[in-house]
């Protein structure tokens, strides 16, 4: 572990570490769930959450003083996910679309994926992030804009496009009944 220096610094470090441990214990499941919706893969989700929290911990003494720690962590998580795409874009040689016209997630048989996750996987990364932050994390448009570093107008347009694509792909949004019916037949609580 770190050389914590003098007694005053040691106490402050121990206090900060204890705070971080408590924060991580409380937020880990939440972050992994959000990361899962961003990546569509359980293992990638845990890796992503761990990467984000590592970066947060490296700056924890500064981060813990922030007004909204969760907002900062969300931002790191989304940026780490975007970085994953940037790296992949350079590293991979792309191939043509699969025969059924969808991109499949690694590690997971297509039959086990819901129509909603399949439709989500077809969204561009930015639209997917908007949808997840807006409708899963229940952030306001302004909060989503702050996380993504874009304007509120962009959030609105990206959300609109994403919902349109969800509607026209595998997922039917039945707002009148307060439910989502997917082509797989899965039905969520009404």
């Amino acid at each position: 572990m770190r050389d914590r220096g003098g007694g005053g610094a040691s106490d402050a470090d121990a206090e900060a570490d204890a705070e971080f441990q408590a924060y991580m214990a409380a937020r880990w499941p939440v972050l992994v769930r959000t990361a899962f919706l961003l990546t569509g893969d359980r293992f990638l989700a845990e890796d992503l959450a761990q990467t984000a929290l590592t970066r947060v911990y490296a700056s924890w003494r500064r981060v813990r003083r922030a007004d909204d720690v969760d907002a900062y962590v969300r931002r790191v998580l989304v940026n780490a996910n975007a970085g994953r795409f940037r790296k992949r874009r350079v590293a991979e040689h792309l191939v043509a679309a699969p025969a059924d016209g969808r991109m499949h997630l690694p590690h997971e048989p297509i039959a086990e994926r819901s129509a909603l996750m399949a439709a989500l996987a077809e969204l561009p990364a930015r639209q997917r992030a908007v949808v997840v932050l807006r409708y899963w994390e229940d952030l306001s448009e302004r909060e989503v804009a702050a996380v993504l570093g874009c304007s509120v107008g962009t959030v609105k347009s990206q959300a609109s496009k994403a919902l349109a694509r969800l509607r026209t792909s595998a997922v039917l949004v039945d707002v009148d009944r307060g439910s989502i019916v997917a082509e797989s037949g899965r039905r969520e609580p009404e």
Partner: protein
Amino acid sequence: MSDESEHDDLNQALHNAFGAEVADLEIGATPVGAVMKAGDTLRTKRRLTTVSGVAALAVLPVAAVAIFAGGTGGNGKLGPGEAGGANHGKGPAVPTAPATVPRTTIPPAALIPSPTVTLPPQGVGVLYAKPNPDDAYTVVASGTIGGQHWRLVRDLFVASLYVAPSPGPDNHLPMSQRGRAGTQACDFTGLQWGDRPPGTLPDFSAGGGCNPAADGDVERVTSPMMQASRSGTPTKDLPVSYFIGRVDSSKITSVAVIIGSKSTTRQPIYSVPGEGDGYYVVFVPPLTFQDEESMGVTGYDAAGHVVAHLDMSTRAPVAH
């Protein structure tokens, strides 16, 4: 049903659906120990990098050019033969020879002490060996630093909605397909340099984004300073750092990169005829991890007033 209640219902329905997707998700034990250990390592690495970066800067010879002389004269104006365009695509409506004269001339007033930038002889553009004949390329701006040419290049192309788009030789469709169902229009911008004269090879390492066919065209800037990117961690092959981005050129006429409490000189915005957006390039000495914790780009209007600031450490835009 009103729009508002419909929206609320949609929110709730989607939230419930997402909740169902993650309800049975198996989540492993919280890796607190691993995260703290990795975080300690990262923090130590940042400190070491900062110290070594400062030491390296201290012994750097005073080289070539102060931060982004903007070409030949240090005033942002381009020299003869430095502005140019190349359209290798088959599609319409992409300017082939944009005027790359900056909109303003900013008197140099270096605020970052002893900034020196030397471009390597061979740029990273060699990652993509050949231009894609389906693409429309535009050289937005160009210049020289220390005898090396640099170019800001835009690659406009069309790809299937079902592939992860990337600049380069693969999977692009003819520009005539733009706007058709199942396609997306992509707009990637990147910087390249080397000892080849500008305008001959449009291949480059770039970043950017795509819009579905419904948009049919390049995403426009909707806030004064919407897009910005920077180079990654400096390496042996890429021993400089730079910021490139796009702004609303009707509001912003110059930008400066802010790192910690220091600033570069203000740099010009380059416009492309027929488009409302402007582009900028700012070269800086190699960034350190410490720099990355506090850096951003500030946009100024013609009178020199701050219009917007983009915090590049947190990516949060700050309105003015």
